[in-house]
Structure formats: C-alpha cells, structure tokens
C-alpha cells in the first residue's frame, strides 16, 4: 500500500482528535495546554503533507509561522497558569469556577 495524502490526513485528523480528547477529558490545565499543542501539531502535519503533495511552498511556510505562534501562546499561557497557581495552589480546572452563572 502506498502512503498517499489520505493516510497523512487521517493520521493528522486522529492526532487532532486525540488532542481534542485530551482537552476534553483532562483536568490539569497544563496537560490541557499540551493537548492544544498536540492539536496544533496535527495541523502542522496536515500542512506539511498538503504542501508536499500539492507542490506548493506556502503550506510549509505556514508551518513555520504556526510554530512560532504556538511558542508565543505557550509562553503567555504558562505565565498565566503560573500566576494562577500562585494564587490558588492548584492547576485543576475544577477549581477554576469563580466566574459562572
């Protein structure tokens, strides 16, 4: 069997889904955050595959940007999580329900 674009995309989608499940199921903000990164990664995979199969550079360039963006997001996100931890001594989302109703 040849590995075509479809296989890559399915792999990417599954990765995306696993990431989503992580976001959905986990209570630890850090792991949720990691799951988000995983989803971005899945997108990257898809992009690279498309770029390769479509013979177009733009996808690969986009990956470059996405990585940077992800890094920046992680930085800000972690900063917020750390501050929250300082305040509440927990990183569980269960405890983060002051804003509701």
């Amino acid at each position, binding site marked *: 069997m040849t590995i075509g674009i479809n296989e890559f995309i399915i792999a990417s989608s599954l990765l995306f889904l696993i990431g989503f499940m992580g976001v959905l*199921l986990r209570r630890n903000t850090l792991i949720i955050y990691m799951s988000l990164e995983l989803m971005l990664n899945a997108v990257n995979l898809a992009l690279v595959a498309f*770029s390769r*199969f479509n*013979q177009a550079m733009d996808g690969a360039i986009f990956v470059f940007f996405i990585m940077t963006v992800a890094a920046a997001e992680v930085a800000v996100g972690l900063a917020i999580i*750390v501050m929250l931890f300082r305040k509440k001594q927990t990183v569980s989302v269960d405890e983060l329900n002051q804003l509701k109703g």
Partner: protein
Amino acid sequence: MVFNPNAVNSAMFMIVVLVATAGLFVLLEAYFLAILQVLVYAGAVMVLFLFIIMLLDVDKGDDLKLGRRKLSLLARFFGVCLVAFLIFNSFSEVNLPSPDLGTVGDYPGIESGIDFSTSAKSFGLILFTKYMLPFQIIGFLLLIAMIGVIVISKKQKTAE
C-alpha cells in the same frame, strides 16, 4: 499521553509524539521543518512545560477521576468515537485525490519564480519577500508574548 495520570509522563509522551511527527516530516522531505520541530517543540516548548510541571509540583494529581465520572467519560468517549468514525467516513468517501509526489527542487529556480522546494534557503527567500509582512508581525507577536509574560508574572509590587 492523554490518559496518563502523571503529568510528567504525559509530557514525556508528548515529546515522543512530537519527535515522531518530525519523523513524518522527514518522510515528507521537509527536513528543515523537521529540525525546527525537534528544536522548537520537542526541545524548547516541552522543556518549558516540564519545567513548569516540576516547578508547580502538580505531577501527582490523578485528575482523570475515572471512577467518579465514568458515565460522562464513557459518553464523551463514544462522542469521540463518533467523530472518529465521521472523519473516516467522510475522508474515505471523498477519497482525496492522491497526487503523485513531485520532485523537490534544491533552491528557488530563477526562471520559474519560487518553485516547490524544502530547502532552508528557499524558506528564507520566501519569508523575506512574499511573506515579509507576516514575518514582521510574528516579530511583534513575540514581542507581545514577551511583554505579556513579563507583565503577568512580574513580581507583585507592594502598593504604596
């Protein structure tokens, strides 16, 4: 990674996934991106994650709480399965036309503009020509992230 109750283990698995993805990049002949992936993601970002996990000492918590929320978990699991099924279904139905892999040029061909290439050089060329503007913006994005991190995690000052 998703089901491991230990945060550190999760992070470790995450690194494995990222490196594996980098491997896939290599398979797709995107060597530059693969290296970036390993360096930036697996290296810097995940180290940051691990660092924070260690710092906050939150690796112990079994936050899945499978026992208590079995039912809702089950429901969600089925939901995920449903989506997975949908994905397979739709993609297998559509069957993206799978083109043959074309050749990969070494560097930008001068005659035909920017040809497809995965070399670092072509990245540089395109980034500094066509994608100059986003590139600059990315710079500002990083600046923002930096300022943000500083603002948020600066030590609390005592009010006068």
